C-alpha cells in the first residue's frame, strides 16, 4: 500500500514537472547506490548554481551535509549539520578522487533516442568504457549548465557524455554495469519540485562555525 502511494506520488510530481519547460529552479531527490553508499542526494538547482545535500544515519542519529561547489574558487563549501553541531568547512575540488573503477577513457558515446523515464521525456545516452556500460537519461529541460561543474563531478559518465555531445540538461537516471552485467552504480530520481529553491540554499550561514576555529590547538 505504501509503495503504491509512493509511486503515485512520484508520478504526479513528475507529470506536474513535465508541464514546465527550461526549468532553472528545482529540487530533485535522487537515490544513489554504489560502492558502500546507499542513500539519497537532494539537488538544489537554481540558474547555474548547484548545491546538494547528502543524508545518512549512524547509530540512530541523522547527519546532513550540504555541498556547494564554487567554480570560481575551485572548492566545495561544506555545511555539516550533525546532531550536536553545525560546521563549515571547505574541500578543494582538485583533490577529489574519482570513484574507484571510474574510467575517464570513454570508448564511445551513443545517443539512443528519447525515452520516458517516470513520465519525463529524457535523452538516452549510452557510454561505454573498457569495463563498463552506462545508460544515462538526461532531462534537457533543466537548464543548469551541469557540465561546467566537471571539476567537481568527477565520477559521472553522464557529465562526460553531455560534454562530448555539448548537451545541456541534468541527469535524472544513471545506471552503470560492468561487462558481466553487475550493477556498479544506479541513480534514480524520485521527486522533482520546480521553483522550490531559495537563494539562501547557496549561502554560508553564520550558524555554521568554521572548522579552523573548532580545531584550534589548545594551549597548555
Amino acid at each position, binding site marked *: 500500500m505504501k509503495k503504491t502511494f509512493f509511486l503515485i506520488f512520484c508520478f504526479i510530481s513528475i507529470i506536474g514537472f513535465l508541464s514546465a519547460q527550461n526549468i532553472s529552479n528545482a529540487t530533485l531527490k535522487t537515490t544513489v547506490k554504489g560502492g558502500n553508499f546507499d542513500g539519497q542526494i537532494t539537488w538544489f538547482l537554481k540558474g547555474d548554481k548547484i548545491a546538494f545535500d547528502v543524508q545518512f544515519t549512524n547509530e540512530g542519529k541523522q547527519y546532513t551535509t550540504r555541498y556547494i561547489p564554487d567554480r570560481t574558487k575551485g572548492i566545495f563549501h561544506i555545511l555539516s549539520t550533525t546532531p550536536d553541531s553545525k560546521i563549515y568547512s571547505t574541500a578543494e575540488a582538485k583533490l577529489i578522487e574519482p570513484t574507484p573503477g571510474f574510467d575517464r577513457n570513454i570508448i564511445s558515446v551513443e545517443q539512443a533516442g528519447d525515452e520516458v523515464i517516470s513520465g519525463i521525456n529524457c535523452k538516452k545516452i549510452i557510454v561505454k568504457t573498457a569495463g563498463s556500460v552506462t545508460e544515462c537519461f538526461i532531462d534537457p529541460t533543466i537548464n543548469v549548465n551541469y557540465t561546467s561543474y566537471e571539476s567537481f563531478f568527477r565520477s559521472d559518465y553522464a557529465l562526460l557524455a553531455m560534454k562530448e555531445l555539448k548537451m545541456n540538461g541534468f541527469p535524472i537516471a544513471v545506471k552503470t554495469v560492468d561487462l558481466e552485467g553487475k550493477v556498479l552504480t544506479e541513480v534514480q530520481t524520485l521527486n522533482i519540485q520546480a521553483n522550490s529553491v531559495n537563494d539562501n540554499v547557496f549561502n554560508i550561514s553564520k550558524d555554521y562555525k568554521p*572548522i579552523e576555529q573548532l580545531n584550534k590547538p589548545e594551549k597548555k
Partner: protein
Amino acid sequence: MRNKTIYTLAIAIITSLYALSIKAQTNNVGIGTLTPDPSAILHLEATKQGFLPPCLTTQQRDSIINPHMGLLIFNTVDSVLQYYTGYCWMYVFQENCDDCIFDMYLSDTAGTINRTTTDSVIVTVTVQQISGTGQAIGLFILANVPNGVTTHLTNPIINYSGSSDLIINSTVFATPGVYPIAIQGICGSIVKFKLYQLTITPCYVVNITSPTTNYNLQQAANLPGPGNPICVVMTVYPGVEMKSDTTTKPVVTFGNLDLQSHVGIINYGAMLARGGNGAVGGTFSTFGNPGNPGGDVVNMTTRMSLMTNTFGYHYAGGGGGGSVGIGYPITIPILGTFNIAVGCGGGGAAALGHGGNSILGGLQINIFAAGHDATGGVMGQGGAGGILNYAINVPIGPVNATITPGGAGGNGGGYGEFGTMGSLFVHFLVTVTLPWPIGTITVLNYTYNPNINFPPGGTPGHMIKRNGFPLIGVPLMLPDQFYQSSYYKGYVN
C-alpha cells in the same frame, strides 16, 4: 801514757815508709792486690765492691774549671759515664763529640679502635736531642697490622726536639686482633725503638649467601637495635643477587640499627634496585604523565663503609619512561566533534619496571600503545615506550576518518639512567565517498601537534642515599655525584 802514744805513732810511720818504699820500687799501686799489674798505675781488685768515680749532675760537671783531658765522671742526670776529651764531655759509647744522643717518648703505649665510635687513635711521639750537635731525628713506623689498618706520622723528621702525631686508622673491614706497632727514631748512627700495642675490636659479621628482596639488615641478622651502637660487616657473596621488588623499598636498609652504628658492605654479587614503571597514559585533559622514579640500592641510616674494589654491581633503578597523550576534541566535517584520545605508555625501567598502560576509558575514539616492560638481572634493559605509527580507519557512513598518530612514549631507563620523554602528533585525514557523481572528497587533512614538551621520564634512583650520614669508600672514596660506570649506577648523595 804519753810514751805509749809516741810509740804507736812511730810504728805507723815506719810501716808507711815501708809501703811507700814498695810503691817507689814498682811505680804503681794495687788495692786489694799485692801484685798490681805492671801496666797499671792503679790496680783495683774486689769481689764485693766497685769503682765509684765522682757522681755529678750535668750542671756540676759543666762547673768543673778547666777539666783535664780524660777526666772521668758519672753523669747522674743521664746515668752514664762521661769523660772529657779536651773538647767535650763524651758518653762512653759515643764515637765523637758530634754523635747524636736523644730521648724518645710515646704519649700512650697502647690503644683501641672499635670501628663504631672511632676509626682511629693518635699517639704523640716526642723526641729530644740531649747531646751532640743539633741534628734531624727521623721517625719510622714498623707496623705488623692487617689490611685496612694504616699508620701515618704527621711530622716524620724532627730537628733537635719536638713531637709528631702517629695516626692509626682502621677500616671496618680490617681483621680484629692485637697488633704491635714499632716507632723507630734514628739520629745519626743512634737508633731507638718504642713499642705501641694496637687493639682492633671485632664487628658483627653478616654473610649474604642467597638471594634477598628488600633486605632489612638489622631485622634479618637479628642485630642489636637502638641504644646499642655496633659495627657490622655485610658481605654479599659472588653470584648472589640482592634486589628490591618496588621502588619505594631499597635493596638494603639498615633497619633499626642504632644511629651511631657503622655498617660495612662488601659486595661481590649484585645489588639491583627496581626500576620505575613507565607512566600510564594521561587523562583526557593531560598530555601524559611523568615516568616514575627508580628505586634505591642502599638507604643509609647510619655511617657506612663500602669496599670499592670488589667488582660487585651496585645498580640503582632506572627512571620509567614518560607517557605521552593527546586528549583532544577533534571536529570532523560531516560527522561533528569527537573526543579522541591518543597516547603511548612510557617504557619500564631496569630492573623489571612495567611499561605504562592506558587509563583512558569511555571516550569515543581511544588509541593507545602500551609501554614495554623492562628486564631484570645484571644485564637488565629498560623497556621501550609504546609506539604508534600506523593508521587507524574509522568508517562512519560515507565518511572514512583515517587517524594516523606518530609518536612514542618515553623509553624506560637502564640501571641508573633517566627515562626519556616521548613525543606525539596526530594526523587526521577524513574523506567522504559519494559514488555518483563526485567521487571521494578530502574534507579534512589536518595534523594536530601540540608542540609541547611532554612529561619527562623518571629520575634514576640512588645507588647510595646517604641521608646526611658519612660514607666511606675503601680504598677509593665515593664522592657525592651521579655515577654511570660498569659497577656503579645511580646517585650518591
